[in-house]
């Protein structure tokens, strides 16, 4: 019987002791169809390395073998697709926490979207805090501690499952104890403070205006692919902070030499993380290549873990003697003033070639071969300034550090630790404590700066010697097709050379031409190396001479679904329904969206299509009686002693002398004279008008009114209130509507003389409900509108249906309304007009705004455009002087270049009769 989880025969790579992995918790997983075992605490990458698997698919364009190159978010190679309900492409093996049953497939830079529904829930939280600390390495922990002790609210976020940052990968000491014990103590103290919140597995992805940051929290991904009931899979925190402390650390840069993309070429810091944090030996025979002090620790740790280190190659002619001695004491050959000029091997690195470099980075002296299965490279350190830059902070190139470091802040933000180029532990702690205390202080919480505890990392690193472009052993840059600058894009020195030869000088142009830095990793680790190559090819001295490209959010890729959160399906946009909506639904209405409102479009009977239903509905409205839910019209209470004067100014016609309980149609124009809205306004009392607006424009009209009231006419004593949702409106329409009204309100005299057109009555329906009944019409019929408090809308609608039943009352929707209006030539503002229609073009197009005039009633309210604009008023939307519409009219009589359609010709056509009080065409 074969054991499906039998390890393939490979040299043991999991170390027998140490690391942050739980040896009592083996986890089975599948990668590219093969089953393996890892440990709790592993990432997929560390588990693969422990099993001797290179852990990446071939490169996208050139099919080159690739392997895991880093241990974090900057990983360029190890992309996977994770199986599950809601399979997810393009995840990084280096940040994916291992769980039991994890099934992943390596990807060559391209994945597949799961066609099935995503079963997971994503949500958002909004948070205000005094201090937000991003990054829980030593600098961030120190900052959070100092700020937290002040009593300020502090949020500390870190993308790892546990705090510690770079301390997780080393074996430093702080305050006389192992650094991770110090971390645990700090975490405990912070957790005990009520104002402090620690978010782990949480990546700050965006830094926007006024200290607004986005943090993506992975809540269940480490548990497996299945949704956890009651817990969102991921959560997007929107955090507004008074002060921000960025302690985001740094990324180790790759170096650009021939064969630098082979599996087994790995960041030296990542090698150290695999050895110390995950207890995995990524290779047995290593060469370490460095430009700076840091990789010495990697070399020593490799030896301590049982690997052979064939050589430590340092680009510096004179590295610090102490480091060199320590390495030599451990049996490591230290080669100075040299570089790896090529890595070789078929499927993985098998050997490297080294050579001495002169001061101009040219190869001098013989080339030497060294066999190895691991090349640990430290090309230098790039402070993680992505968030800093997103916040519009500037950077400058620091010659001593050979890095772009933060320069000037653009928001209330400080940056500490490696993210500002401070690479020693003592400096990180010092800076963190000081920045945390200062952040709290400036947010109003006096704070002391804690004393920095003694620690093992108090030597400042010495000066690095970057080698931006390691020369090939032969040829020139145009032929260096295996010097990779961006691994995911398979972009090489030869590609950059081609761009430069084509005349490009700007790093932005070269980036676009070569696509460097635009792949999944967005060049986190490689961008500055690429800039270094560009600098060399342009003949510039340092990357500082060419500058960086702009960093753009998100810092790490985030799923669309996380950004969408719960705003999906019915919650994507609020759906507004009227009080009568349940009746519509129950009676088979087909709905139409009007803005956010759902309005019945038509009410088909069994077997009817839309045309049949609409014809039937129209017939009822024209010949019998029909009923429509008109609740969605915007309604605005205009109240105050100057309400009439105000309406005079915002409409093109006058309202101040309108009798109480009378209604008038009004047309509203923008300052440029274009028709903006229209509707009937009812005067309810001396100082109280009720304005109606088109359904879609209600909010816009209210804004518009407020604007003029507050900014131009603050002297007017008027208040505006939206009451759209307070009133339900039932329009009873048709020659027999009067009979329905008679039945509904037996006490009200609804005869033409007692209740004339364009008037209103406050009354009580037979069922006891208080109602305001208006005799106005949408579509030229005899019609009444019954307005009741929304609570009673449904009941009153039902009683109208009941009262009209003997007359065959017919509910109708917007489609019928459009037909009825079109038949009468009544346009709808916003549907039949755009921002080029003046009252004049409207009038002369032969249409009219005679909404709610009645063909039955010879008594239109006189609100034809002719009357509105030429006739009467001192009304104006601009001042008490002649209104904008008159202005519009006085604009040059004929535009010099009229459009062939004459659409916006605002002068009366020469052939047409001038406006007059002649009978309106619809009478």
């Amino acid at each position, binding site marked *: 019987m074969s054991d499906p989880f039998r390890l393939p025969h490979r040299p043991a790579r999991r170390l027998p002791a140490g690391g942050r992995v739980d040896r009592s918790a083996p986890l089975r997983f599948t990668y590219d169809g093969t089953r393996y075992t890892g440990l709790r605490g592993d990432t997929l990458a560390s588990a693969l390395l422990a099993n001797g698997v290179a852990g990446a698919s071939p490169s996208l364009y050139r099919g080159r073998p690739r392997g895991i190159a880093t241990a974090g978010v900057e990983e360029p190679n190890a992309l996977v697709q994770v199986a599950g309900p809601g399979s997810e492409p393009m995840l990084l093996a280096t940040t994916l926490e291992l769980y039991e049953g994890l099934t992943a497939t390596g990807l060559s830079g391209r994945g597949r979207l799961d066609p099935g529904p995503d079963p997971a829930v994503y949500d958002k939280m909004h948070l205000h805090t005094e201090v937000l600390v991003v990054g829980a390495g030593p600098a961030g922990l120190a900052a959070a501690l100092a700020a937290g002790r002040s009593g300020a609210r502090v949020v500390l976020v870190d993308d790892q499952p546990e705090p510690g940052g770079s301390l997780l990968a080393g074996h430093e000491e702080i305050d006389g104890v192992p650094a991770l014990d110090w971390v645990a103590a700090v975490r405990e103290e912070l957790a005990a403070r009520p104002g402090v919140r620690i978010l782990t597995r949480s990546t700050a992805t965006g830094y*926007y*205006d*006024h*200290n*607004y940051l986005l943090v993506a929290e992975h809540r269940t991904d480490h548990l497996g692919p299945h949704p956890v009931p009651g817990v969102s899979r991921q959560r997007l925190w*929107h955090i*507004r902070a008074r002060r921000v402390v960025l302690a985001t650390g740094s990324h180790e840069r790759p170096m650009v030499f021939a064969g630098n993309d082979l599996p087994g070429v790995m960041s030296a810091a990542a090698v150290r993380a695999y050895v110390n944090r995950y207890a995995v030996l990524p290779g047995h025979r290593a060469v370490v290549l460095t430009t700076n002090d840091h990789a010495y620790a990697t070399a020593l740790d490799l030896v301590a873990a049982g690997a052979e280190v064939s050589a430590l190659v340092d680009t510096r002619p004179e590295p610090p003697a102490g480091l060199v001695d320590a390495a030599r004491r451990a049996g490591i050959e230290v080669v100075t003033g040299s570089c790896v000029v090529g890595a070789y091997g078929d499927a993985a690195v098998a050997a490297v070639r080294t050579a001495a470099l002169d001061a101009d980075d040219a190869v001098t002296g013989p080339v030497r071969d060294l066999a190895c299965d691991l090349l640990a490279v430290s090309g230098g350190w790039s402070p993680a300034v992505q968030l800093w830059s997103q916040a*519009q902070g500037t950077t400058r190139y620091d010659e001593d550090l050979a890095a772009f470091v933060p320069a000037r802040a*653009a928001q209330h933000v400080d940056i500490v630790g490696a993210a500002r180029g401070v690479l020693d532990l003592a400096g990180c702690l010092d800076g963190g404590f000081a920045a945390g205390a200062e952040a709290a202080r400036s947010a109003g919480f006096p704070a002391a700066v804690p004393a920095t505890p003694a620690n093992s990392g108090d030597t400042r690193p010495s000066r690095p010697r970057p080698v931006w472009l390691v020369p090939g052993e032969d040829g020139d840059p145009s032929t260096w097709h295996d010097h990779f600058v961006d691994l995911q894009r398979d972009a090489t020195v030869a590609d950059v050379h081609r761009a430069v030869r084509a005349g490009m000088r700007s790093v932005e142009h070269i980036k676009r031409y070569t696509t460097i830095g635009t792949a999944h990793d967005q060049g986190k680790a490689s961008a500055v190396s690429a800039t270094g190559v560009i600098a060399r090819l342009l003949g510039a001295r340092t990357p500082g001479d060419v500058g960086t490209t702009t960093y753009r959010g998100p810092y790490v890729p985030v799923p669309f679904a996380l950004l969408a959160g719960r705003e999906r399906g019915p919650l994507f946009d609020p759906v507004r329904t009227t009080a009568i909506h349940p009746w519509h639904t129950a009676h088979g209405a087909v709905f139409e969206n009007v803005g956010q409102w759902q309005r019945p479009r038509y009410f088909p009977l069994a077997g009817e299509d839309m045309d049949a239903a609409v014809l039937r509905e129209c017939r009822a409205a024209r010949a019998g009686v029909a009923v429509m839910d008109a609740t969605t019209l915007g309604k605005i209470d205009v109240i105050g002693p100057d309400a009439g004067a105000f309406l005079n100014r915002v409409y093109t016609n006058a309202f101040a002398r309108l009798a109480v309980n009378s209604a008038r149609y009004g047309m509203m124009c923008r*300052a*440029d004279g274009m028709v903006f809205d229209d509707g009937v306004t009812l005067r309810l009392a001396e100082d109280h008008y009720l304005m109606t607006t088109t359904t879609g424009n209600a*909010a816009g009209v209210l*804004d518009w009114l*407020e*604007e003029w009231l*507050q*900014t*131009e006419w*603050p002297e007017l004593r008027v208040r505006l209130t939206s009451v759209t949702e307070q009133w339900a409106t039932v329009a009873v329409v048709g020659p027999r509507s009067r009979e329905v009204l008679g039945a509904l309100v037996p006490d009200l005299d609804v005869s033409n003389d007692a209740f004339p057109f364009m008037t209103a009555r406050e009354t009580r329906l037979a069922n006891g409900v208080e109602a305001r009944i208006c005799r106005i019409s949408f579509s030229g019929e005899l019609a009444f509108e019954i307005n009741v408090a929304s609570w009673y809308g449904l009941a009153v609608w039902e009683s109208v249906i009941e009262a009209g039943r003997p007359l065959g009352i017919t509910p109708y929707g917007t489609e019928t309304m459009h037909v009825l209006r079109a038949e009468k030539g009544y346009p709808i503002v916003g549907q039949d007009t755009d921002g080029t229609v003046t009252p004049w073009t409207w009038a002369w197009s032969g249409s009219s705004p005679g909404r709610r005039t009645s063909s039955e009633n010879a008594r239109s309210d006189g609100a034809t455009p002719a009357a509105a604009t030429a006739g009467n008023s001192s009304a104006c939307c*601009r*001042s008490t*002087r*002649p209104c*904008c519409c*008159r*202005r519009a009219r*006085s*604009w*040059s009589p004929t535009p010099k270049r009229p459009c062939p359609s004459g659409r916006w010709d605002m002068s009366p056509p020469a052939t047409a009769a001038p406006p007059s009080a002649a009978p309106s065409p619809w009478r």
Partner: protein
Amino acid sequence: MLLIACPWCGEREELEFHYGGQAHVAHPAEPEGLSDSQWGEYLFVRDNPKGPFAERWSHSAGCRRWFNVVRHTVTHEILAVYPAGQPKPVILP
């Protein structure tokens, strides 16, 4: 997302506000006396500086009051907030 300090409500998210364009564009006292180009100037021509800009906002999803803000159009830093009708504060560069 800007954080705008409504003079009446205090600091609120940009989403609660409605933008009203350049502030201090006085309505012409005698519109009917203006030439077409003067009138067009009033309606359509606005400043668009790269730097501090006095503009109008309304707290439309809050107290609905209009007020003025001086905002830097590159950094979006808000340099002043003041009620409508008050003169533009002197902002030192």
